[in-house]
C-alpha cells in the first residue's frame, strides 16, 4: 500500500471536516462546554476550538472534526513505533489525523501534529475501511501514531472495535496526556500503548512541551495496571533532560510504580522544529543513560535512533544472551520461544504471538 503523505499547504474546505459529537465533554450554560478528554480541560464558548485544534464547540455541542479523516497513512514495522516486545517484525497499518494536545518544541511530526485539520490534505478513511485495509495488506496491527491519537480518540476507539472483529491488534503511540476515564475506556479496546515520557521534571514539561508531567505519570500507572502491553520512550535531549540524576529518579519511579520489566527506550534527539539550536544527542550520553537505568534495576533498556547500536537488541537478563537481534527496525534473529529465552528458559515479558 503506497504511503499517503502529508501536505500542510493543501487546504481542504472546512465543510469536509467531520462533525461527530465528541464523547468526553460537559455542557455548560450559554452554549459553553468543558472538554474532559485530556488534562487541559478546555473551556470553550460557541465557535471556539480546543488547544488541540481539532475539536470545536458548535452552538453548545462539541464535535471532533477529524473522525475518519486520516492525514497520514503508512505501513511500518512495529519496531519503528517502537514496540520491541509486541509481535516483533509485524507490519502495522499506521494512521494519524491532524492535531495534538501539547506543543513539543522538538516535535518531529509538527507538520501534522501542530496544524488544524483544514490546513492539511487528508483522506476519508472511516474505521471499517481502516480495518479492511489492514486485513487486505496483511497487517496484524493497526497503530494510532505520528500525531497524538488522544485528539482523535473517537476515531481511534471505533477503529479499534472494527479491528478486533478481524482479530487485528491495536497499538497506541501517545504522549499520555489523557484523563483517567477516557483512558480506562480505551484500554478495553487496544492491545498495547507506547508512552512518550518527555522528561522527569515539570519544568521541562512547562517550557518545552506545554503540558503537565503528573497526568502522564498517572496514565502510565493506569496502563501498567491494565492488561494492555506498555512500553516507554524517553527522548534524550542534550543538556535539557539527560542528567544522570534525572534518569536515576525516573528509573526508580518506574521500578517502584511499574516494575523492572517494562521496556524503556532512550532515543537519540535530532534537531527539529523549534529546537534547532542543540546538537544530536551524543551516543556516549545515551550509553551513560543506559548504564544508569540498568544500574537501577530496569531489565529491558534500549537505545533508539542509533542504527546498529548494540542496545537495539534484546538481551535475556538471566543468561545475558542476545534473544532478539535488530538493525534499524528490522528483526534479524529471534531466540524466544513461547515467550521464553531459548538459551535458559527465562520468561521474557511481552506479547509474542
Amino acid at each position, binding site marked *: 500500500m503506497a504511503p499517503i503523505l502529508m501536505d*500542510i*499547504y493543501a*487546504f481542504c*474546505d*472546512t*465543510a469536509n471536516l467531520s462533525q461527530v459529537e465528541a464523547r468526553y465533554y460537559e455542557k455548560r450554560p*450559554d*452554549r*459553553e462546554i468543558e472538554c474532559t478528554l485530556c488534562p487541559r480541560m478546555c*473551556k470553550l*464558548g*460557541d*465557535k*471556539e*476550538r*480546543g*488547544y*488541540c*485544534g481539532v475539536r470545536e464547540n458548535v452552538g453548545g455541542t462539541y464535535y471532533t472534526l477529524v473522525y475518519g479523516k486520516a492525514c497520514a497513512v503508512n505501513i511500518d514495522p512495529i519496531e519503528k513505533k517502537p514496540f520491541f516486545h509486541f509481535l516483533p517484525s509485524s507490519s502495522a497499518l499506521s494512521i494519524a489525523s491532524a492535531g495534538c494536545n501539547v*506543543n513539543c*518544541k522538538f516535535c518531529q511530526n509538527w507538520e501534522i501534529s*501542530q*496544524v*488544524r485539520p*483544514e*490546513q492539511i490534505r487528508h483522506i476519508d478513511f472511516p474505521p471499517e475501511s481502516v480495518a479492511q485495509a489492514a486485513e487486505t495488506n496483511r497487517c496484524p496491527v493497526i497503530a494510532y501514531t505520528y500525531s497524538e491519537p488522544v485528539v482523535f480518540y473517537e476515531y481511534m476507539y471505533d477503529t479499534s472495535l472494527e479491528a478486533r472483529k478481524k482479530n487485528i491488534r491495536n497499538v497506541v503511540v501517545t504522549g499520555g496526556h489523557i484523563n483517567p476515564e477516557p483512558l480506562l475506556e480505551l484500554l478495553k479496546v487496544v492491545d498495547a500503548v507506547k508512552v512518550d515520557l518527555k522528561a522527569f521534571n515539570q519544568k521541562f514539561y512547562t517550557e518545552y512541551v*506545554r503540558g503537565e508531567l503528573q497526568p502522564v505519570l498517572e496514565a502510565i500507572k493506569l496502563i501498567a495496571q491494565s492488561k494492555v502491553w506498555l512500553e516507554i520512550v524517553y527522548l534524550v535531549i542534550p543538556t535539557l533532560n539527560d542528567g544522570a540524576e534525572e534518569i536515576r529518579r525516573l528509573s526508580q519511579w518506574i521500578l517502584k510504580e511499574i516494575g523492572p520489566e517494562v521496556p524503556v527506550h532512550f532515543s537519540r534527539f535530532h534537531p527539529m*522544529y*523549534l529546537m*534547532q539550536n542543540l546538537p544530536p544527542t551524543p551516543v556516549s550520553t545515551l550509553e551513560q543513560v543506559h548504564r544508569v537505568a540498568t544500574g537501577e534495576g530496569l531489565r529491558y533498556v534500549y537505545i533508539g535512533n542509533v542504527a546498529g547500536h548494540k542496545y537495539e537488541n534484546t538481551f535475556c537478563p538471566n543468561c545475558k544472551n542476545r534473544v532478539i537481534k535488530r538493525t534499524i527496525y528490522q528483526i534479524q534473529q529471534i531466540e524466544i520461544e513461547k515467550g521464553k529465552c531459548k538459551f535458559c528458559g527465562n520468561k521474557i515479558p511481552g506479547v509474542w504471538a
Partner: protein
Amino acid sequence: MSRVVIVRGNKTLSSGKELNLKVLTRMYEQGFALLTEQNNPKDSFHCIFPVQSKIGIKINTIGGKNISTRPEAALCLANLLAKTHVQDENIIIWDRTNRELKDAGYDLNLSRSGIKILGTDTQSIGYNKNLTAHRNIGSLFSAIQTDLISASISLAILKDHGLAGVTGGMKNYFGAIHNPNKYHDTNCNPYVAEVFDTDIIKRKHKLTILDAIIVQYHRGPSYHVKWADTLGTLIFSLDPVAADTAGWTIIEELRAKKGLPSLKEENREPLYLKTAETLGLGKAEQDKIDVLEVDV
C-alpha cells in the same frame, strides 16, 4: 505620548441594526483627521502608508454575523483608501477562512480586480512555508501577511475574551498564524505580544482601528446578546498597544456599569499589554496615552 482617537457615531446603527454609511464615513474622516492632524483622508493616508502600499485590512470574523468586524466598516475603510490613496486592487480585506468571512456577511472577491476579500485558505494562498520562530512563538504566517501586502491595518472587533481578557487589534493577528490554539495558555500572555513582535507583523502594521460598534463586554469572545452593548464607536491609534488599552478601558466601564467584576477581579486582565509595552511595541499605561474623544 501615544494618541488614541475615540469617535462616537450618533445613530451609527438604525433601529434595524443597519449601519448608517454616511455616519460611518464621517466617523472615519474625523478619526483620521484627529489622529494625523490632517485636513482630509488623502493627506492622512499619506502620513500613515508609504506610497504604492499594498494594504491588508485584517478583520476578525470568528464570531459570525453577530460579533465580527462588520462588513460595512471594512468596506467603508477600503473604499476611502481606494478613493484617495491606493488603487482598489491593492487592498485586501482578509481573515483566516473564506467560510468565516462568508458567515460574518462578507461577499468574497477573489478576482484580480477590485478590493479583494478573501481568506488565507483560498487556493494558491495558504501559509508561508517558512516556519517563524520568535521568542515563544513557532508558527506559519498567512501568505497574505507575508507576501501579498506591504502595510497592514488591524480592523478588529473589540470584545471581552474569556482567556485573554480583551481581544482587540493585537490579538487579531492570531488570525494570521496557523496555530492560534497553541497560544491561549496563561491568559494569552506573552503570546499576543510576541506574535505581534514578529517582523512579519510589526514591520507592516501601520494602524489599529477597533470596531466598537457593538461591544461584547462579558463572556466573550462568543456572542451573547445579554452582554453585548451598542456603542456605535470606532477607536483609532497608530500605537497598537494604546489602542487596545483604550479598548480595555471601555470594556471595564461597561462591566462596571452592569455591576460585573473587573477583569482583574476575574484573574484575566490583559497582561499581554504590559508585555507588549516591555517589548517596545507601544504604551500600556493610561498616563502615557492621550485620548481624544469626539462625537459625529
